[in-house]
């Protein structure tokens, strides 16, 4: 009998956690410094499973960290830098108080500073790790670069953010990596594909800042501090991968073109180069001046285990991507002054278009309004005084919609003063049987290469729309009567492209296909008959869900039609 009495809270989860205050004391740091250290090192608070055990019987809400994490922090060299900085501030304050200006000078000269390079290396052991986490860095970079330099954060930080984001945009342009753009009420969402990683970021509209008071700027600045370091290294690597010079240099040809007499009007001499870079209007210099895009084809390994179908699908995708990358190639844009210049220049250049703007808007314009070779002028006002015959006057949404649709959309819907079609989100991916807005259906039809008769008259178009809708309805009816299993089979075999109409050209091939289909359907019916009770139950459930979805879709479509009709009636009335 006997032995030592076990004390409470000396083993188990109570010893695995540490409260924030104790951790802070253990590291001998002030709370802001501790917070900064945790953010930089990527150590986050942890919610224990059994709070009462960890909190020694108390249920008061507290912030806990894992003890091992804090022990890991003890080895960080930056901790000593933080302490040094604290002493530095104290000395500086004293010197100021005593008005010892020479001491102030001396102290400021020896201000302790630290680098985060080793932390970046430690947190992101490989380049791909860093790329996966670059979303946040980009968001913060773009956000901070739009801040006014009024002392909410260091001016230097803003400048650094601006530099890095410009570098990033230049890289995306050079690699033509942009995939999607979405103009939302918050800001502009971009998505790019870099080295196989999908990277999304959010850019605020210009001059849209009010500074919210419930945001901890110190925390945000700390995040930015880490992310600028990360973004810089990632940029370097990306530039290297494209054989571009880092830090970016303008192409020698472009540089000579951009040379102007009145550069001082835009910026100081020291800044004019970076300003030119940020104008995004010219290409960058390469390490080895390569001969225009060597066509590197994917090596084909036909005898591998993969199916030919998959291979073909991939090839098709590749082809589509290639065409998407070149949708603006050969076009010459001119951006009017009322349009967001940077975003449009970025997007247009990403897809191979040439772009320019008025000289008074920004540095780096390459041609004038009067240039006869301009094909598109982007205008966002009701009318333009002097119009040129040989160019389209379009609204900015056309550019973004083209990018999202991956084809050059007809310009008629986007002419000056025309009521724009809705700007759909490219980030929504409709699943089978979901409701698809008719505008998207139209775009999908265009993507497949079906030509809609392009006539200038609006009514024609309306009719077309109606046609579209009719087809859609037909589809719906078909789906509604799909109690027979054949339909299901079709769905499975054809995959996504169900909702869209079947082209009349296929009728000839139908007979053998139909036979095959029937055979398959028969097989399926038999399979269903052979199902166990349990499986059958599950199957029925799935089918029921699908039908319900179809019903909902039908309802939405009907609603939409009613809405459209009402709109049309209104329009007609207005016309009368």
């Amino acid at each position, binding site marked *: 009998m006997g032995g030592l009495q076990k004390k409470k809270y000396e083993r188990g989860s109570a010893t695995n956690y540490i409260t924030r205050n104790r951790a802070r004391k253990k590291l001998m740091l002030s709370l802001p410094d501790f917070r900064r250290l945790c*953010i930089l090192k990527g150590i*986050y*608070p942890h*919610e224990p499973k059994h709070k009462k055990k960890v909190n020694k019987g108390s249920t008061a*809400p*507290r*912030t806990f960290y894992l003890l091992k994490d804090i022990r*890991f922090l003890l*080895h960080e060299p930056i901790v000593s830098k933080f302490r040094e900085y604290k002493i530095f501030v104290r000395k500086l304050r004293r010197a100021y108080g005593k008005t010892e200006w020479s001491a102030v000078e001396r102290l400021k*000269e020896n201000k*302790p*500073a*630290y*680098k985060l*390079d*080793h932390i970046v*290396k430690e*947190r992101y052991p490989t380049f791909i790790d860093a790329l996966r*986490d670059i*979303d*946040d860095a980009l*968001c913060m970079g773009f*956000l901070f670069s739009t801040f006014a330099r009024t002392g909410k954060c*260091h001016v*230097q930080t803003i*400048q*650094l953010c601006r*530099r890095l984001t410009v570098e990033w945009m230049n890289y995306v342009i050079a690699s033509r990596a942009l995939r999607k753009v*979405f*103009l*939302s*009420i*918050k800001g502009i*969402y971009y998505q790019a594909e870099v080295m196989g990683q999908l990277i999304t970021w*959010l850019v605020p509209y210009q001059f*849209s800042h*009010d500074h*919210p008071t*419930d*945001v*901890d700027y110190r*925390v*945000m600045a700390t995040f930015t501090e880490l992310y*600028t370091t990360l973004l810089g*290294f990632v*940029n*370097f690597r990306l530039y*290297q991968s494209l054989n571009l010079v880092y*830090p970016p240099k303008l192409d020698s040809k472009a540089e000579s073109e951009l040379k102007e007499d009145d550069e001082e009007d835009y910026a100081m001499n020291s800044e004019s180069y970076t300003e030119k870079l940020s104008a995004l209007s010219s290409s960058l210099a390469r390490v080895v001046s390569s001969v225009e895009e060597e066509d590197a084809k994917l090596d084909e390994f036909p005898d591998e285990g993969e199916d030919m179908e998959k291979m073909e699908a991939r090839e098709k995708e590749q082809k589509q991507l290639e065409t998407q990358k070149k949708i603006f190639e050969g076009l010459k844009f001119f951006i009017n002054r009322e349009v*967001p210049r940077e975003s449009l220049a970025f997007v247009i250049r990403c897809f191979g278009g040439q772009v320019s703007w008025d000289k008074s808007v920004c540095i780096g314009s390459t041609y004038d309004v009067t240039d006869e070779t301009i094909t598109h002028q982007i205008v*966002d006002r009701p009318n333009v005084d002097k119009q040129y015959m040989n160019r389209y006057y379009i*609204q*900015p*949404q056309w550019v973004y919609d083209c990018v999202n649709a991956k084809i050059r959309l007809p310009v008629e819907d986007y002419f000056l003063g025309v009521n724009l079609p*809705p*700007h*759909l*989100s490219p980030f929504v991916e409709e699943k089978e049987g979901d409701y698809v807005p008719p505008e998207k259906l139209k775009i999908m039809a265009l993507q497949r290469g079906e030509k809609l008769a392009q006539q200038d008259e609006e009514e024609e178009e309306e009719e077309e729309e109606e046609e579209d809708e009719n087809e859609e309805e037909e589809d719906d009816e078909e789906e509604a009567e799909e109690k027979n299993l054949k339909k299901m089979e079709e769905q499975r075999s054809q995959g996504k492209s169900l909702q869209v109409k079947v082209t009349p050209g296929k009728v000839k091939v139908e007979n053998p296909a139909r036979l095959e289909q029937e055979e398959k359907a028969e097989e399926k019916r038999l399979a269903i008959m052979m199902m166990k009770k349990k499986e059958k139950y599950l199957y029925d459930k799935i089918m029921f869900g699908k039908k319900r979805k179809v019903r909902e879709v039908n309802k939405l479509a009907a609603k*939409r039609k009613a*809405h459209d009709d009402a709109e049309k009636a209104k329009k007609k009335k207005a016309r009368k």
Partner: protein
Amino acid sequence: MAARRRLKRVAASQSGFLSFKSPSDPTSSVGSRRKRVNKNKKKNWNKYSDVNDVDEFLEDVRHQERTTGGLLSEKADDSLFFLDLGQPEKPQPLAETPQADEGRKRKGKASRPLRIDLILKPDSLVPPPKDILAYQQPNAKKLRRIAEKAERLAAKGVVPRKQKRLLNRRPIDRTVKKAVAEANNNPDRDYYDIWGQEPKVSADPWYLQQTGKKLVKRPEKLNEKPSVLPAVEVIAPGGSYNPDFFSHQALLQEAHQVEVQKKKQEDKLERQLAINKEDKATEETNLREQVEGLVEEENDDEELAPSKEDDEAALAAIAVTQKKSEKQIKKEKAEKLKEQQRLTSRRQTERQQQLFQLRSIKASIRQQEEKTKSKQMQRRIKQEAQKAQPRRLGKLKFQAPDLDVQLSDELAGSLRQLKPEGSILKDRFKSFQKRNLIEPRERAKFKRKLKVKYVEKRAFREIT
């Protein structure tokens, strides 16, 4: 010293100078009786010797020196007297002076001393004493000797040690400054290929580890993200600047739901905090409260009576427990034993019967297992869902930000007229909180250390 010596000499040469001892003053000897004082004390000498005449004499000498620059008696006759030749001819010097004056005025009005300077100028003719120390060099002799020695050595070609040391010192390269630590947010900082090559470690790993120069390896577990949510959550399609009608409606619906939920919560709280009508004071209850204890109640006696009965019953119970006969005890024991036997036999039969219930037992076990499995499944699903949820990391719970929505009439027709909604900074901040990267916090409130004391000013008080 010199001055005193001169004074002595002067005094000796003066005929009027009287020695100390001589009873010179007839007035003092006549006027009062001489007081006898011991002259062997310095104090008495100081006190009782009359020095007026000496003082007078010295004062006179000083006066002479001041005014004439020496003693009159020593001056040559030429300097004291002059030959009176009568009135000089006035016009001639007058005629001369205006010209000269004019010329002087022209040339150097500035050179003429100011009157104030003249006033302040010392009028004594005694030259100021020389400061001898100013011309003296301390340790002159020693220094001279050292210099001589150095000269001698230099002639021999021997370099002194100090100079030799200076010559031998390694020249400091002033151009190479100590590497100034560059700030992290320097906009012109340079980057390099951090993932390219591993830096070579030349030193002994043991040494590095012991001296704390080696970086500790980061645990793998720290690279896991605390939440599965993506960094950038794209706004719903209804948040487009020019949205599709239905998706916009859907977004509005969602925002509406959130608001309704909030309202519900508020209403619930209000309901719970509302006053119960029965608890309100009425006239009747007030009266009853005031009268309580004053009006005698009559059922006091009745209450007392039954309490007596209770006591009796309790006593009886105690008596009964004491009165248990041996027979009774035996009987109880036997009954207990019997009961136990009955139970054991029953258990035995039951167990035997279970042999035939094997199927149903198996079924029940299977059922139980299934139940646990489904529970496990549900728990796992719940855990997965939890991963996307913000955790409770501090005092405050995560508050989801308001949905950014523009009403149908707020929607802009074109990109130019678009009015951005919400703040991206806040959106990012909330995203960090939602992904459990930072704990939700409230802004620290300003705390006043000392209490503010309000005093009504007199002027103000007079008015009110």
